[in-house]
């Protein structure tokens, strides 16, 4: 390994200090005066000895030599020698620091992985551009400096520090990185890094085309598969962080109001043990901080042979339970694990329970007997009907409250509209006026080719002998979810847009065989009403993931509100014209609250619920584009300085010198 000095100017000090020592040695040699009767014999003896022993002079100077050695070692230690890593020679280095949720794992020493990663980054940065002292450059010419860039990534990658040669700046910036509870999105980090590196290469291309660049990844390796990623950097090195594996986490928490008995709440909880020991712990469930039930959770150790593709739920280290709780009103449901483990973020999860209520449904139709028949038996609070003309003409307060549709579901039958406040819509043989949604044309008679039986909307819906007499060839945005496919494209699709959830059915019910199979249609309408009216809508989302944007509906007239973050700090959110404020700073798990918001819609629990992040096992077998990533050593010291060895050697030689001085008679 090449050898360097952090303070090479100390060598000048050596040049200044050593000659006086030599001088002092000869001047000094404080000899003890001793009277003798005659020096005459002594002189003769000394002369004789010098004549006979050619090494005597050297021996006499042994102490001086040792002192010089001690001094040289001391000065050398002060010059802060380092064993440089080979990285130092590279012209540009991108440091990618993982700040995803798993990096919050507390290691044995009480520090989190993120702290360690930051420390590693600092140490790494300190090895750059340290030999480039101006003093030394007098001799070695102008050194090319290493340009360092720092990117922190979790669910999103951010440039912490652009390419710079000022290491002090980089260190400052590294200190400012905050950990998050977001998922790992290394791909974005790499893409960002490469984008910048390409840029610098273009900039530098006039000078030299052979600029090497490398990426140092400081992470616990908990990254999703990166086989698709192609590495364009010359070198990627992973510095693995962390060792702890003991973690039990809540990997899923779902609730749903019972459709028929709305005060009943079905709760689904999944707890996974990622550690290597079987555990038993208690899971408490609280609603609005009131303990409702405690469940004992017994989990086996994680299977040794890990297959990422196997369904997590199949193994014994996963505990799943569905509970039925009675929650008469709205509230915040919390699940807490009693056990302390390395990663705290996944030990609790909470979810906002909506108030129970029966559905309000609006049917916008020119008299559709089949639809009315299908909707009639549903346990609805209210079923209103309007003609399309009435709908378009209706006053805002007839349809809207707090920027949101007052109906839980609006069914449009053969009526295209863009009057769509936030809410849930079922379009039959019609399309909503949403961006990317349209009609490409009419199609004739067709059958259904494929449908997603697992989707709640299509559960128990028999579509095998369904023929449509005509239909629309739908134009859908890419993010649309196709639920039924026909020969000409999607027939039933789910489209989400800005708090609106639409199901679009491409053919009219009465011009199909569906009405003849009334149970099937009835089940579909039941499912659709239940799905759209109760859970799925974004506006009523009960919990969020780190990094999700919060859509906060503020009371009418309120333009600004204060948002309390889980760590106790506060942010100000501003509403847009429709009274909706957006907040994207959900980087930590916990409860985000807007005290002045609309009650019941002002609490936003953010949960980890990510088995990938909860799995804190350090992985070093990172596979990137089919290439195994080189695993670097931990940078143990701030700089791999070795001055201690020199100080130790200096002390040792000082001891030897002392010994020899005292034993000179022995020489």
């Amino acid at each position, binding site marked *: 390994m090449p050898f360097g000095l952090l303070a090479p100017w100390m060598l000048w000090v050596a040049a200044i200090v050593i000659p006086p020592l030599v001088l002092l040695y000869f001047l000094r040699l*404080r000899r003890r005066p001793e009277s003798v*009767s005659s020096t005459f014999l002594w002189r003769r*003896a000394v002369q004789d000895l010098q004549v006979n*022993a050619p090494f005597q002079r050297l021996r006499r100077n042994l102490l001086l030599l040792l002192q010089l050695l001690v001094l040289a070692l001391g000065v050398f230690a002060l010059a802060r020698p380092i064993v440089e890593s080979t990285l130092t020679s590279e012209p540009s280095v991108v440091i990618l620091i993982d700040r995803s949720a798993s990096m919050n794992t507390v290691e044995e020493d009480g520090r989190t992985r993120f702290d360690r990663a930051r420390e590693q980054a600092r140490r790494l940065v300190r090895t750059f551009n340290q030999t480039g002292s101006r003093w030394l450059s007098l001799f070695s010419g102008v050194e090319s400096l290493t340009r360092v860039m720092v990117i922190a990534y979790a669910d999103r990658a951010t440039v912490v520090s652009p390419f710079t040669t000022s290491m002090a700046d980089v260190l400052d910036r590294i200190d400012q990185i905050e950990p998050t509870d977001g998922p790992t999105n290394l791909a974005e980090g790499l893409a960002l890094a490469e984008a910048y590196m390409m840029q610098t290469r273009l900039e530098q291309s006039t000078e030299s085309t052979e600029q090497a660049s490398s990426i140092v990844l400081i992470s616990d390796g908990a990254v999703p598969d990166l086989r698709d990623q192609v590495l364009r950097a010359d070198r990627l090195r992973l510095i693995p962080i962390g060792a702890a594996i003991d973690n039990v986490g809540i990997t899923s928490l779902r609730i749903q109001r019972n459709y028929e008995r709305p005060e009943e709440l079905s709760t689904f909880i999944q707890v996974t043990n990622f550690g290597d020991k079987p555990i038993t712990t208690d899971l408490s469930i609280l609603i609005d901080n009131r303990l409702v039930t405690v469940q004992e959770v017994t989990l086996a150790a994680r299977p040794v042979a890990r297959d990422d593709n196997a369904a997590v739920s199949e193994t014994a280290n996963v505990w799943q339970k569905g509970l039925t709780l009675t929650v008469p009103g709205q509230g915040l449901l919390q699940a807490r694990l009693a056990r302390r483990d390395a990663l705290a973020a996944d030990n609790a999860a909470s979810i906002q329970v909506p108030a129970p209520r029966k559905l309000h449904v609006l049917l916008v139709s020119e008299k559709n007997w089949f639809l009315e028949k299908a909707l009639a038996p549903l346990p609805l609070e209210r079923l209103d009907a309007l003609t399309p003309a009435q709908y378009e003409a209706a006053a805002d307060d007839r349809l809207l409250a707090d920027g949101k549709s007052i109906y839980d579901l609006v069914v449009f039958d053969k009526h295209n509209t863009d009057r769509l406040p936030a809410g849930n819509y079922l379009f039959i043989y019609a399309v909503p006026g949403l961006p990317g949604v349209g009609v490409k044309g009419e199609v004739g008679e067709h059958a259904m080719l494929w449908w997603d039986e697992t989707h709640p909307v299509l559960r128990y819906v028999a579509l095998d002998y369904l023929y449509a007499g005509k239909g629309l060839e739908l134009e859908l945005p890419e993010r649309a979810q196709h639920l039924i496919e026909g020969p000409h494209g999607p027939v039933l699709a789910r489209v989400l847009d800005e708090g609106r959830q639409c199901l679009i059915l491409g053919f009219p019910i009465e011009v199909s065989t569906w009405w003849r199979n009334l149970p099937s249609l009835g089940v579909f309408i039941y499912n659709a009403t239940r799905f759209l009216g109760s859970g799925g809508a974004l506006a009523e989302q009960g919990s969020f993931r780190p990094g999700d944007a919060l859509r906060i509906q503020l009371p009418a007239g309120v333009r600004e509100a204060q948002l309390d973050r889980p760590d106790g700090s506060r942010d100000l959110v501003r509403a847009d014209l429709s009274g909706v404020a957006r907040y994207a700073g959900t980087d930590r798990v916990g409860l985000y609250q807007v005290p002045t918001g609309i009650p019941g819609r002002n609490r936003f629990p953010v949960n980890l619920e990510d088995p990938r992040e909860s799995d804190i096992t350090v992985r070093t077998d990172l596979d990137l584009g089919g290439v195994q990533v080189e695993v670097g050593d931990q940078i143990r010291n701030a700089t791999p300085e070795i001055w201690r060895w020199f100080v130790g050697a200096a002390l040792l030689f000082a001891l030897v010198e002392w010994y020899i001085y005292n034993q000179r008679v*022995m020489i």
Partner: protein
Amino acid sequence: MKGERRSRRKGDSAEFADYRNYVSGDDLRFIDWNIYARLERLLLKLFMEEEDLNVTILFDTSGSMDWGDPHKGLYVKRVAAALAYIGLVNYDRVSLFGYSDELVHEMRGIRGRRLVSQVLGFLDNLEYGGPSDLTTVARRFAMTHRGKGIVILLSDFLDKGGYQEGLRYLVGRDFDMYAIQVLAPDEIEPALAGDLKLIDIEDEDVAEVTVSKPLLKKYKQMLTAYCTELKDYCTQRGVTYLFTNTRVPFDTLVLSYLRQRGLIR
């Protein structure tokens, strides 16, 4: 005037002592012609000398004697006093000379037991100091004293100017010479170590030495060689040499060692 002591020197008494080879210039009267007739070699007959004894005690009072434990100077004084006493008691002419680079203390030609107290007083009042210069002293002594008698030289012989020339002057005057070298134990086995600035107490000469084991060994070798050289020099010139260490009790020296060497009976 003949005394009652039988001198080691050959003289003209009736008592035959020895033969020696003739060298040109010898008195022809002493050639043993009988031997010549028999062996055809010229041999000289030597006779015992009987003399009125001059006992001269020359002792070193230079700075180097003011050193050592037991003190060399005191030791020399005691020996000198003992020898002077013996001389006085035997009714010999006793002279005492203390020297450094010059004959600085003198007590000449005293005779008789009653003067012992004077001798002791004289010795008691001696001061040590100055460099030793045996050559100058011996030359001066030899110029002012002619032949005959015993000369006892008490010194450490650590003379930077060398002892050879001085001894040669004395030997040349045909004295019955005794040289007693007195050294302190610390000179024989120096208890020194480390980086030292050795200061010569005689002339303030400074020698910077780093006392190491080989140096000590070398020093002892040098000392032995020096003493041996001195001894050989003396023996070759008929000077009785005696080495003593101040740790040897002076009475032992006087009563046994000197008796063995024939200085006293």
